């Protein structure tokens, strides 16, 4: 399988946090959702890919090129980035941004840029300062898509946007990967969006990768068992990821619901969402 992004044993140390041996492989032509709590290491991982921070060890390959701590301008031309806030000066207008980016990127395409500006209804007669949050994000996205990137990296790009705009943007992502030569790495807290469009999900917690699998595998394998507090103790710990207990009953996240049902056919197991997986991993009481 050909990987667009191949990260191996990425480690970055900070005084109070360590990104520890992170390994992620993103096949070409796919969308990978990147989830985790605040402070889990998503942005640090993305910054490491983009050489915004100097990593301590590990390797990062982009389309077969080693970009660890040293991506060339040519590699960067092929990566489009949308960060969680608009980084264009308040005084700039759309035409100014077009002029600036035209002189930064060799592959800048003004026609595509203006088509996205029209498609997203971004005002051309206002400065960035006068834009709404949604328009700023759409502007970021229009810029990221307008230099023919092969990889699109988005760090919380859709946070704070209304459902209408998010739906528009998700459609753009799906169009982007149609030819199977383009890839997206999408970090987001809005797990419903990820469930709609992602092929792969990577979950990071406390600087370590918990899992990195196809979305269908994740949603198919994991399940939630609802039972009484007394019944909870009867299940084999090998199935249990974590459990949430209240005064009356217990909910348990299990790692293989088909095998679990074979062993406990009378158990009530329901399908799980990505959000629930995150909640259980971060908030549950450890099982005995």
């Amino acid at each position, binding site marked *: 399988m050909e990987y667009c992004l191949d990260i191996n044993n990425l480690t970055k140390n900070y005084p109070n946090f360590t990104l520890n041996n992170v390994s992620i492989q993103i096949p070409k032509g796919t969308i990978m959702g990147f989830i985790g709590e605040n402070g889990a290491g998503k942005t640090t991982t993305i*910054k490491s890919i*983009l*050489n*915004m*921070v*100097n990593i301590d060890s590990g390797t990062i390959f982009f389309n077969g090129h080693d970009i660890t701590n040293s991506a*060339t*301008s*040519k590699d*960067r*031309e092929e*990566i489009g*980035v949308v*960060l969680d*806030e*608009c*980084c*264009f*000066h*308040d*005084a*700039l207008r759309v035409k*100014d941004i077009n*002029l*600036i*980016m*035209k*002189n*930064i*990127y*060799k592959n800048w395409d003004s026609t595509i840029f203006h088509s996205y500006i029209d498609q997203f209804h971004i005002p051309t007669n206002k400065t960035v300062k006068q834009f709404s949050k949604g328009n700023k994000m759409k502007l970021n996205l229009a810029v990221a898509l307008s230099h023919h990137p092969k990889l699109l990296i988005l760090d919380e790009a859709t946070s704070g946007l209304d459902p209408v705009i998010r739906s528009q943007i998700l459609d753009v992502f799906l169009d982007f990967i149609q030819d199977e030569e383009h890839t997206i790495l999408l970090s987001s807290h809005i797990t419903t969006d990820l469930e709609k469009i992602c092929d792969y999900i990577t979950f990071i917690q406390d600087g370590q990768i918990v899992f990195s699998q196809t979305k269908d595998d994740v949603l198919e394998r994991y399940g939630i068992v609802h039972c009484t507090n007394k019944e909870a103790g009867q299940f084999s710990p090998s199935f249990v990821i974590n459990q949430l207990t209240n005064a009356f009953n217990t909910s348990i996240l299990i790692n293989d619901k088909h095998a679990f049902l074979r062993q406990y056919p009378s158990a009530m197991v329901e399908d799980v969402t990505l959000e629930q997986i995150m909640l259980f991993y971060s908030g549950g009481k450890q099982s005995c």
Partner: protein
Amino acid sequence: MLRGLFIKDLIVLKKSFIIALALLIFYSILGIGSGDLSFFATYFVVFFSIINISTFSFDEQSKWMSYVLTTSITRTKLVQSKYLNSFFFILGGMLCSTILSVVQHLTNPETPFTIFSSYSIGALAGGLLFNFIVLPIIFKLGSENSRMIMLAVLGIPTVLVIILSKNNVFANIDSAFLTQFLKYLPYLGSVVLILSGILSYMISLNIMKKKDF
């Protein structure tokens, strides 16, 4: 690529340039008949020397530096752009200074006309040296945290000159030595400027390569 960064700074500094143009016109009018525009000629070089520093502040407000490093701009190119900007902006100051000299000469033909007065050349050297000292500090600490240091870089030499003048240090210097010194000052000054520019650039590059954004 560097052109894109320069264009960005020009657009962002548009208001500052409009102010500079208004001042140029104002001081030209003010200077007509006053006979001496040397202060104003120097002023423009100093103004444009400092204007490059304000681009850091604008960049920090919008977190532009973090973003631009995700584009095809490398850290080396980012550092190069700031040094080239300082050079071009100071040249812009020299241009304003020249315009003032032309105005002065046209309104008062008896005054000698020089394209670059000794004041403006001195200001050029001072402006470049100021940028060479301050740019690595700003790359390291950011524009907000560097303010006090910038004030010190500007203030300490000024205070020193005032103290030395008041104590007649300059008056006691041997005139023959002074003549010789002034004769070789342009050559010595050029060497000092070039070496300090190279050193400043290498330090800035080293800082930027190690910095995490």
